[in-house]
């Protein structure tokens, strides 16, 4: 048991953080693995940046991070409240990907995976999150959404599920 300094930020980390993992980070990790196997190293660099920025945002959620992940909003801050060391650690993983070659890619990917796993552990789930691309993934995620949606609603926070997943006419 641990003290929760900010209930709203704790809820944000557990819910919106999990959504980002399931909806984006997991898929990008699979894409990176595929791109490495096909030696598409330029694509690996851009995928890695996307993964690390998402992880940095997840890590910022208990600090000063905006709870709605919106990378298309050009003022959205992936780094809000993070220490310079935390930012440098993440971005250095991206920069290391620029140098990878066939013989070094696996070791680099292990490092990225450890960083991602460490970020996932911060979310506080006892088991690994469901994989959206797996047969039971969407239902697994809907289970998480069912758990948190009433709390988010009570706190006046935005919906957890992406609007495009909801029937038209649902609350934006």
């Amino acid at each position, binding site marked *: 048991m641990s003290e929760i300094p900010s209930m*709203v930020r704790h809820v944000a980390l557990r819910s919106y953080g999990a959504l980002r993992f399931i909806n984006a980070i997991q898929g*990008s990790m699979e894409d990176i693995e595929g791109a490495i196997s096909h030696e598409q190293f*330029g694509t690996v660099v851009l995928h890695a940046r996307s993964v690390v920025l998402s992880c940095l945002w997840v890590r910022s959620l208990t600090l000063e991070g905006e*709870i709605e992940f919106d990378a298309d909003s050009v003022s959205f801050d992936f780094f809000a409240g993070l220490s310079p060391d935390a930012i440098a650690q993440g971005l250095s993983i991206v920069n290391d990907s620029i140098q990878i070659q066939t013989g070094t890619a696996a070791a680099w990917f292990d490092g990225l995976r450890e960083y991602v796993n460490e970020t996932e552990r911060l979310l506080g789930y006892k088991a690994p999150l469901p994989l959206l*691309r797996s047969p039971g993934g*969407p239902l697994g995620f809907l289970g998480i959404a069912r758990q948190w949606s009433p709390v988010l609603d009570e706190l006046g926070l935005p919906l957890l599920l992406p609007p495009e997943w909801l*029937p*038209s006419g649902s609350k934006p």
Partner: protein
Amino acid sequence: MREQQLTDELLNERLDAFLIARRTTREKVVSDVADAFGPPLLVVATGSVLQGFSNPQSDLDLNVVVDYSVTRLPLPSHRHGFLIDATYFDAIEVKAWVSRPSLTGEITRDQWRRYSTELKYCTRFRDSVVLSARDSWDGWISEFRKPGLVSRVTEWWRLESLRRWCAGRWLADVKPLLAAQRRFEAILATLESRAATRGQVYFGPKWLPEKLRVLNDHEGLEVLHAFQKAPVTEPEAREYNSRCEACLIQCSERPNERAVVQLWYLPGVRVRELDAGVLVSRWNLRAVELGPATPRIPDRHRPIWEGEFDTTPPADVLRLFISDMTWLSITTKPA
């Protein structure tokens, strides 16, 4: 640098190669499509496989048009030993995309999102192989292959470059690392626009290096390589931002037009009156205290500030932007 023409022959070749390697057939793939929304009007294969960017981990994307109101809830299938990712569309919305005019005038976040999503889907239908069709729905593919779509995608990325460039400028003093990220994105968008003019309209920004490689665009790849190393400290970011600014001034296409920046309050923002100013908050979680001249929220359908691309807003408005309380749009007007 060469242009790339995605012919039906090439698209079919790529699809068949993918299916043969996985010991399956088009018929089996189509049989996997759910009929919960009624018999499909159109089923097409699309995505990175047909673009020639696939790798052993790639899934096969299917776009399915039905005569039913549907959502985009992912429905993955592994029945054939690999992932088939089917996305369902209502026939009414698909028909509406084709005639949708470009964004002009006042552009809210919702309008921007809907337009970009629709543009992405249009490009997916454009570069696709029809697996099954009824009621003449295969004829709709030719609508997506009209030259207008290439122009719309090219222009979209050009304006995206300006949008992210503007943010990079406004963030540079207070948040140099974030400014560096936005300027890098502006450079990527410039390269996307350049690739789109040569036929690479596929909406998948992470595939940009592959697109430039296919186009034999050495100059584009050189620019990408020059800026892909992210600065990790603020001093590094300031130096990086100067280099990006020079690159963007040199590379950006600015026809004879007025690029106008609009700021809108984001969802969840509230403005509360104080004795000598206002408290602006988002989701009651983050807040910034500003002066009395800060814009209120008189009308959700009007921007709180509008100005030329090369200008900077008043201090309180700029602070709202830096504090991530506003959505930034770009629109163009005749010079």
